[in-house]
C-alpha cells in the first residue's frame, strides 16, 4: 500500500509526470482525430484537454502542480508564433495579391468579434469582469491575457475562454464554409485565424497550407487590432 503511494507522491511533484501525460494525451487525441479522418468534431485540443482535466480531477491534483510540468509545452507558443514567418515567406506572392481583402476583413472582422461578444454577453446580463474577460477571446492566449488584465478582466479565465473559442471555431469552420460553398482557401483561412487564433490555424494547416498561412497572418493581425480597439468598445458598453 505505502510503496505505490510513496511512488505517486514522488512522481506527482516532479514536472516529468504531467509533462509526459500532456504529451501522451495529445498523442492519443491526435490518433483519434486521424482515425476519424480529421473530422472537425474530433478536435485534438478538445480531446486532450478533456483527458488531462479528468485525470487532474480524479487525482485531486492542483492546476499549479500540473502547470509546473506543462509549462515547457506552453512556453513553445512564443517560438511557434515566430515560426509563422516561414509559411508567410513561402506564400508571400499570394499574400501580396490579397492585401486589400485582408485589411478590410481584419477591420470588419475584429470589430464584429468584439461587438457580437459584448452584445450577447450583455443580453445575458453577465457581470462586468466576465465581460472584460470575454472581450479578447479571439486573440492568441498570451496577448489576450494581457488585454483582459488591462480591461479589468480575469486573465486565467480569459485563457480558458480563448482556448474554448479556438476549439469552437476550429470545429465550426469546415462545415460552415462548405455549406456556404466557399472554396477560396485564403478567405477561409483568414476568417478562422481571425476568430480562432492558433487553434484555428492548426486546423487550417491540417486542411490546406494556403489556408494555414492566411490563418496565421489573421491571428497576428487580430492580436494587434483587438489590443487597439477593445478598450474603446468596452468603454462604450
Amino acid at each position: 500500500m505505502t510503496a505505490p503511494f510513496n511512488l505517486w507522491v514522488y512522481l506527482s511533484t516532479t514536472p516529468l509526470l504531467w509533462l509526459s501525460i500532456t504529451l501522451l494525451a495529445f498523442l492519443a487525441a491526435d490518433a483519434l482525430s486521424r482515425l476519424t479522418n480529421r473530422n472537425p468534431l474530433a478536435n485534438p485540443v478538445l480531446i486532450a484537454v478533456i483527458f488531462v482535466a479528468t485525470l487532474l480531477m480524479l487525482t485531486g491534483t492542483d492546476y499549479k502542480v500540473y502547470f509546473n510540468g506543462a509549462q515547457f509545452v506552453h512556453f513553445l507558443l512564443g517560438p511557434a508564433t515566430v515560426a509563422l514567418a516561414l509559411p508567410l515567406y513561402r506564400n508571400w506572392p499570394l499574400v501580396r495579391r490579397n492585401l486589400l481583402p485582408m485589411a478590410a476583413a481584419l477591420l470588419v472582422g475584429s470589430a464584429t468579434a468584439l461587438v457580437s461578444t459584448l452584445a450577447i454577453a450583455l443580453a445575458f446580463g453577465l457581470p462586468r469582469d466576465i465581460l472584460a474577460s470575454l472581450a479578447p477571446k479571439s486573440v492568441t492566449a498570451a496577448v489576450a491575457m494581457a488585454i483582459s488584465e488591462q480591461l479589468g478582466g480575469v486573465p486565467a479565465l480569459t485563457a480558458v475562454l480563448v482556448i474554448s473559442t479556438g476549439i469552437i471555431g476550429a470545429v465550426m469552420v469546415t462545415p460552415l464554409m462548405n455549406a456556404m460553398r466557399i472554396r477560396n482557401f485564403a478567405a477561409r483561412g483568414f476568417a478562422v485565424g481571425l476568430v480562432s487564433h492558433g487553434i484555428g490555424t492548426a486546423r487550417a494547416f491540417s486542411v490546406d497550407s494556403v489556408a494555414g498561412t492566411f490563418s496565421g497572418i489573421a491571428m497576428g493581425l487580430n492580436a494587434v487590432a483587438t489590443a487597439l480597439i477593445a478598450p474603446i468598445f468596452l468603454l462604450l458598453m
Partner: protein
Amino acid sequence: MVRGFVLLLLCQLAGEAFSRALALPVPGPVLGLVLLFASLQLYQRVSGTDRAAVGESDVGRVSDGLLQNLALLFVPAGVGVVQHLKLIEDHGLAIAVVLIGSTAITLIVTVLVFLAVARWVDGAAGEAKP
C-alpha cells in the same frame, strides 16, 4: 536544429524587448514574426534563392516541426478550465451561447468581407477568375 531554434528565440527576444521598451500594443512574438519574415525577405533578395528552399534550412525544419504540432501547445492553457468549474456552473450556458454565437457571426462576416473585396479588386484589375 539548435541553430534554427536559437534563431526563433532570438527573434522572439528582440520582439519582446522592442514591445516592452517602446510600450507597443503589439505582442513580442508577433514582432518576432515580423523580424524573421523581414530577414528572410532580405536574404531572398540578396541570394535570389527559391522561396521553397527555406524548408531545407535549419530554421525551416524547426519551424515546420513546431507548426505541425501547433495544437499541442494549447493543451496546458486549456486544462486551466479546472480552475473555473464554479464559474461554468453559474454562467456556463450564457458563456457557451456567447462563444458559439459570436464565433459563427464573426466567421461569416469575415469571410464574406474578404471575398467581396477580393472580387472587387479582381474586377478593378480587369482579371477574369479562372
